[in-house]
């Protein structure tokens, strides 16, 4: 939970300092942005997953094993399907947090790998509000489109006993 609790600016500076020297030189690359988002938002996804898993009855996967399914089939056909809401909320949360993040990425972006949020801040600093607002609007539209797409792909968990 530490990477979630530490302020973004501290994380950003830490990543820049940690990865600017060999053996792992990532400062200025796109990889460092991805890594930063992954590790910064992972605690929420993991916690959500653990909470959802603890809600599942242990006997469900035992029953699946008893009926002849192997562990892979059990995960694929029972566990993952029942965890759909948690997976969807974790992905949505991680994506929205990443695309709207500014504190950490402001140190990590480079000329080659810039992000919309830091670009918008730059435009505002130059007094170019029109471009900044346009970029912000496009960002909102992209976010909505991706969330709706994820909703479509992952979908809702259908529990048959809820339909009555």
């Amino acid at each position: 939970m530490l990477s979630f609790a530490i302020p973004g600016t501290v994380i950003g500076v830490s990543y820049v300092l940690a990865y600017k020297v060999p053996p792992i030189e990532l400062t200025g690359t796109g990889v460092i942005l991805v890594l930063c988002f992954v590790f910064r938002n992972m605690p929420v996804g993991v916690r959500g997953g653990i909470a959802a898993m603890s809600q599942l009855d242990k006997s469900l996967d035992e029953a699946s094993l008893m009926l002849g399914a192997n562990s892979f089939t059990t995960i694929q056909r029972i566990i993952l399907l029942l965890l759909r809401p948690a997976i969807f909320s974790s992905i949505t949360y991680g994506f929205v947090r990443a695309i709207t993040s500014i504190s950490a990425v402001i140190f990590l972006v480079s000329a080659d790998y810039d992000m919309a949020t830091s670009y918008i801040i730059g435009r505002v600093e130059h007094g170019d509000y029109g471009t900044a607002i346009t970029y912000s609007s496009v960002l909102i539209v992209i976010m909505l489109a991706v969330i709706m797409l994820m909703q479509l792909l992952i979908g809702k968990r259908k529990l048959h006993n809820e339909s009555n």
Partner: protein
Amino acid sequence: MNEKSTAASVEFRNVCKSYADVQAIKDVLFKVEAGHLVTLLDPSGCGKTTTLQMVAGLEQSTSGQIYIGDQDVTKASVIMRDVGMVFQSYALFPHMSVLENVAYGLRE
């Protein structure tokens, strides 16, 4: 009863099960002959479920041997044992219809 039965006997030979410091069952010794109906009756928390789960292979014994028929299944997996079990909570898959629940065991 002219149908040929596929039932097999179940035998526990000094089976013990412990979780860390807690001894769940100790030196359980019994034999249930094929086709017999047996009830385990004891207070809550005495190890009835653990015993049944060890027959099914959902729990591994700490020591002792478990036999189904003439076969030593102590270390055998759930699939190898071919044992059926009805769970206390029924364990119906909530995202499936009644038909899908029934048909689950029939699929590859």
